[in-house]
């Protein structure tokens, strides 16, 4: 394969746009710093302000010294996005490192990467005593990453050229509005509407659950961000199990589902086109897999006697599947209990749900419903072609906003990404098996959770896990969020630079 070696001009373009994204990212830390100052959490506030200062300084320096009017190509944009997630998460880790709740740079980077990729796996120590402002900051990383760092920059600070290319390079190929900036603003408007309605509803549910006053609002805001951005961080160490409240769980299920559907579908719903929204292949596929996997889980749990009453069975089983399938990673059952008290088949259903993920163009990770559907239709198409006479013309179509003929190129694309996800899931499993004492089930569970950006854990992800495994999960979260190709482009750039010739 011949790759043209990047030149100085290419590096300038990449560095300049990277600087713009880092400038935007630095401002995400600011609200949490202000909360810290308001509550008198001085050490947290100064940790956050240090993060703001360093990230802003690097961003501004890059924008100043590497300023260029050269156009940003898709190849540049792809490398910028891949680097933005790596470098952005590293710089976003500064406040977490200085908080004193992690052991070192790697733990802080892991936490920030988990937050920005909306994974939700955590290595924060003594979370239950973490300051309000630092805990809010963890959740704001979900917001920045879930809406897409580029989307945040586009919606808030959009100016100049190249942002449309970055938008496409971030893996967001849907344009629900005529241009990319209006699309970004629509996504932001949807998110803000859900923010208001979701936070108010959750606050009421939390007040009723026994968390009064501003603390109810604070919990509600954090939970909303984590649910709608399919993140998975929670303010307390016992996740959603902490609240003991069916009403809170019910609201979160709605928000998780809202987070896992694409913004194109939100647009259809926004415009009142309910029927059109329900007819798309992706909607139907997601509905079928959620119902099927929930059914398998409930039957498996019932047969194995994991729960004694139907209420508990449905509440724990259904919530866990929605949490896994949406890519959120909220837990109502301790990870240890999943291994010690859940039926193996139920655990397998959770792994499959995590691996499949939500809709393309949403905040969810995983393989995505549309790829599963297209790959399945491709297989069925080939079987039909085998069974029919050779002269028969076999045409398969699907509904994705409009009726579309299934082409080999689409099937190949879906299959390629599907296989890459499977390979990543297996690679993480293998590293866990080699480096630790865990069995295949636990190793596979944690690997899929990391690569599909889910965040459910059976207890492997802790501050004490082997460093090699921690780096593996960190890379899996990054690869899963970028859906591989931006990362491959970055590696290709690096190789062609290292080779030293054009």
């Amino acid at each position, binding site marked *: 394969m011949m790759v043209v070696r990047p*030149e*100085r001009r290419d*590096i300038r373009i990449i560095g300049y746009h990277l600087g713009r994204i880092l400038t935007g990212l*630095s401002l995400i830390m600011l609200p949490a710093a202000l909360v810290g100052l308001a509550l008198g*959490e*001085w*050490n947290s506030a100064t*940790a956050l302000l*240090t993060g*703001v*200062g360093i990230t*802003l*300084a690097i961003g*501004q320096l890059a924008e*100043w010294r590497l300023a260029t009017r050269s156009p940003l190509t898709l190849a540049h944009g792809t490398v910028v996005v891949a680097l933005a997630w790596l470098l952005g998460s*590293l710089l976003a880790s*500064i406040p977490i*490192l*200085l908080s*004193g*709740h*992690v*052991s070192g*740079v790697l733990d802080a980077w892991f936490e920030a990467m988990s937050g920005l990729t909306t994974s939700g796996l*955590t*290595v924060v*120590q*003594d979370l*239950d*005593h973490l300051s*309000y402002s630092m*805990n809010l900051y963890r959740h704001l990383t979900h917001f920045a990453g879930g809406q897409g760092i580029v989307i945040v920059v586009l919606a808030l600070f959009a100016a100049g050229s190249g942002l449309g290319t970055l938008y496409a390079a971030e893996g967001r190929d849907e344009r629900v509005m005529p241009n990319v900036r209006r699309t970004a603003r629509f996504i932001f408007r949807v998110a803000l509407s859900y923010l208001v309605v979701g936070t108010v509803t959750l606050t009421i549910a939390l007040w009723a*659950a*026994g*968390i009064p006053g501003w603390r109810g609002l604070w919990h509600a805001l954090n939970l909303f961000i984590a649910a709608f951005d399919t993140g998975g961080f929670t303010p*307390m*160490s*016992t996740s959603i199990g*902490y609240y*003991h409240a069916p009403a809170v769980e019910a609201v979160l299920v709605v928000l998780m589902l809202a987070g896992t559907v694409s913004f194109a579908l939100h647009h259809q719903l926004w415009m009142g086109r309910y029927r059109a929204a329900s007819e798309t292949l992706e909607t139907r596929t997601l509905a079928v897999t959620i119902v099927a996997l929930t059914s398998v889980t409930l039957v498996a749990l019932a*047969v*194995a*006697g*994991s*729960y*004694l*009453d139907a*209420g*508990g*069975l449905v509440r724990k089983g259904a919530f866990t599947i929605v949490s896994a399938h949406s890519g959120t990673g909220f837990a*109502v059952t*301790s990870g*240890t209990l999943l291994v*010690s*008290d859940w039926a*193996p088949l139920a655990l397998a259903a959770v792994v499959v749900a995590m691996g499949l993920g939500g809709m393309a163009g949403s905040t969810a990770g995983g393989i995505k419903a549309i790829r599963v559907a297209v790959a399945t239709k491709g297989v069925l198409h080939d079987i039909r072609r085998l069974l029919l006479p050779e002269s028969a013309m076999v045409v398969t179509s699907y509904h994705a906003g409009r009726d579309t003929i299934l082409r080999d190129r689409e099937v190949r694309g879906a299959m390629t990404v599907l296989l890459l996800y499977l390979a990543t899931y297996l690679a993480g499993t293998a590293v866990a098996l080699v480096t630790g004492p865990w069995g295949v089930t636990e190793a596979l569970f944690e690997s899929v959770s990391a690569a599909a950006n889910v965040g459910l854990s059976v207890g492997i992800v*802790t*501050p*004490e896990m082997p460093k090699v495994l921690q780096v593996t999960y960190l890379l899996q979260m990054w690869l899963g969020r970028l859906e591989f190709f931006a990362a491959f482009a970055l590696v290709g750039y690096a190789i062609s*630079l290292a080779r030293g010739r054009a």
Partner: protein
Amino acid sequence: MRRSEPVLRRLLLIPGILLVTLFIALQAFHTGTAPAVDVGPSPALRSELPPLVDVAPRCQRDRTGLDVDGAVVGPLDLPPDHRVSSAQLLGCPAAFDGRRVTFVGELIGDLLGRDGGAWVLVNDDDYALEVGPLPAHRDRRGINSGMSVWLPDRLQVGITGLGGPGQRGDLVRIEGVIRRTDPSDGGGMTLRAETLEVLAPSAPVEEPLNVAQVWLAAAALALALGIWSARRLRADR
């Protein structure tokens, strides 16, 4: 092309080296400015805590039932003057189902009031029993662990405070019954308290102001502001 080689190398290498240096410096700063405030239970109280029972059952469910270390669940020896830990309970809930146990830990978060009582999280990790809450010190002992406890109204009378940011909660000794799947908690595993004794009252966690970090934040913000201003000035020209 050949002439641009050193420039290209500079564009790539210098930021990389600076970034690595920055994080090495931040790690050193983080370690070097660590506070060390004693916020844990007193040594006398620590030595008086009931010892842990000497059992560590692990179980996994097979397709139709439960398998404890490959054997049937037998009666565990739980002496009344010994306590159990959340790790033991979660490792094999079936082995403790319906058993009366002693549990010691820190009340955390909120008393989530319901009819006749409240749910509360009781952590029995090292932050509760040994070293006290972070970030008042740097003796990190991993993630939190604890149990969901149902406290009837009559047991809440002596509670002085719950743990959270800037606050260590009451250290309590609870006796109660374990329920592997509690219908009143939607099937969750709970400890239903029958007695509660406050061993050490709640106390604020005094985290000293990290003056060096104040200066670091001020320097970083000044640097950012300086670069931003210089860039603006250059653009205006």
